[in-house]
């Protein structure tokens, strides 16, 4: 399996190198996308310097943390989102008869994936950590990689759940689009600005708040704000990520059994 995975990345990188101009355009695309988002935050916080006690520096850290986790997901797991297409055009059935785990094969379907967003995410995260004045101590070094991975797993869980829905409803594009939109917009601000119901939703049901808000609150020492959860929940992101991926995987198994059971 490791060998297959290595080959998969080799093909990805080679394909990308072959279409160099495309790669440059997509790099510009990633850059402008995050650039305009951060610029929008800066414009607003330049005019109104505090959002519920969060300055632009804090918000930049909040954004950088989400961006990095999201980039890890997009680089390593985004192919999960192509599963509905494979189901629609029949490609998926080929994966079923091969002697490797179906989900693994779906993840390792070569395309044109290059770690441009990951690179940009790492640089951005470094810059915002310095800019927000976050102290880089042992806890930071130990936990940040785990938190980023946990955040990527939360992303993966939702990506997988939506793709699994495609076993029942063929077209899930609109559903995916709405979830992606909501994730982007709701992770951009500290969740204290929302009503109680929405905060609960973002914490326990669609736990996007664990991707960046709770960890950022821990590292920026803002746990006193709002009598919500204690500061250390910010370090629980990896556990939350694993739990949600487990739930998503169980759902995936149900969908898969149903799909191959009907004799497709």
């Amino acid at each position: 399996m490791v060998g297959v995975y290595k080959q998969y990345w080799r093909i990805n990188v080679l394909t990308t190198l072959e279409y160099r101009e495309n790669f440059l355009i997509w790099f510009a695309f990633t850059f402008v996308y995050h650039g305009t988002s951060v610029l929008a935050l800066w414009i607003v916080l330049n005019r109104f310097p505090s959002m519920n006690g969060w300055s632009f520096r804090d918000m930049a850290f909040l954004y950088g943390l989400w961006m990095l986790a999201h980039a890890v997901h997009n680089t390593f797991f985004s192919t999960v989102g192509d599963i509905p297409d494979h189901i629609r055009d029949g490609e998926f059935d080929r994966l079923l008869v091969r002697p490797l785990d179906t989900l693994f094969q779906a993840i390792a379907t070569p395309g044109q994936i290059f770690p441009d967003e990951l690179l940009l995410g790492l640089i951005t995260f470094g810059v915002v950590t310095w800019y927000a004045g976050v102290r880089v101590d042992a806890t930071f070094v130990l936990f940040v990689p785990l938190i980023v991975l946990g955040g990527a797993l939360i992303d993966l869980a939702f990506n997988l759940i939506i793709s699994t829905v495609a076993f029942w409803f063929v077209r899930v594009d609109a559903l995916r689009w709405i979830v992606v939109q909501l994730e982007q917009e709701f992770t951009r601000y500290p969740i204290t600005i929302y009503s109680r119901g929405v905060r609960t939703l973002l914490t326990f049901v669609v736990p996007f708040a664990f991707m960046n808000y709770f960890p950022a609150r821990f590292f920026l020492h803002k746990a006193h704000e709002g009598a919500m959860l204690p500061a250390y929940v910010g370090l629980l992101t990896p556990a939350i990520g694993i739990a949600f991926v487990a739930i998503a995987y169980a759902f995936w198994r149900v969908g898969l059994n149903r799909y191959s059971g009907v004799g497709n």
Partner: protein
Amino acid sequence: MTAPAQAQLTRRPRFRLEPYIQFAQKAAAREATYRFDVFTTIASVLVRVYLLRMVWIALYARNVTSEDLPLHAIITYSTVALLMGLVMDIDQTRTLHDKLHSGGIATDFMKPINVPLYFFSDGSGEVLFHAVLIVPSLLFSLLIVHIDVPGPLVLATFFASFFLGYLVGFCVNFIMNCIAFWTLEIHAARLIVTWVSDLFGGEVIPLVIFPLFLQKVAFVLPFAAMFSTPLLIYVGVIKPERYAQALGSQAFWVIVLGLVATLMWRAGAKRVVVQGG
């Protein structure tokens, strides 16, 4: 040049409007078949109305507020912007790009129709269908936010300005899709233009909140004519004595971009016909 194309050029049929109305109706019917998309579109507008309301409340609670735009005005601004987005954010001439990709454009040139006008009516049909969605979106939005309603003069000017903004948006969109005559990989470039226009068009953040140097940049670009002008008229930041100037600058952009679009279309169409369709 193929024979039918030549025939079209030499023997131009009398112009009739009915086919174009039919094109628009067909486009609207096509859109209506994606019912699930209709539902998610409305839901997503409502969620964003809620989100922006909370964002502005949080920002206004702890800062020195803007005199030009009090809290209720900025919430009105955001909500009206989201409703306008239902119509403005549509890629109306995507069919042009698709047809250039598939080669289907060649047969369009053989038909006795004005091809750019065909794309305009096809896109407008799609847009009109989405315009209908404004009604339920507005009604549900009123459950979440309060929207200021200005007097009849302001409202009438707003709609005029909105229409000019739509034309500017159509031209920008058409120009972007015309690029596909030369290079087919325009997806990333399109999205980049979309994000820049979202930000500098004042769709999310009113341009009057921008720092001065960025305001200057924004007002030089055509994007401000799409969202910012009608919205600032609606919330009363642009006063009646400046209406003529505001609508005039929008009209200016319609003419300039319309001209660019026409030139690009002619050059592109020539390429297709010369290459033999």
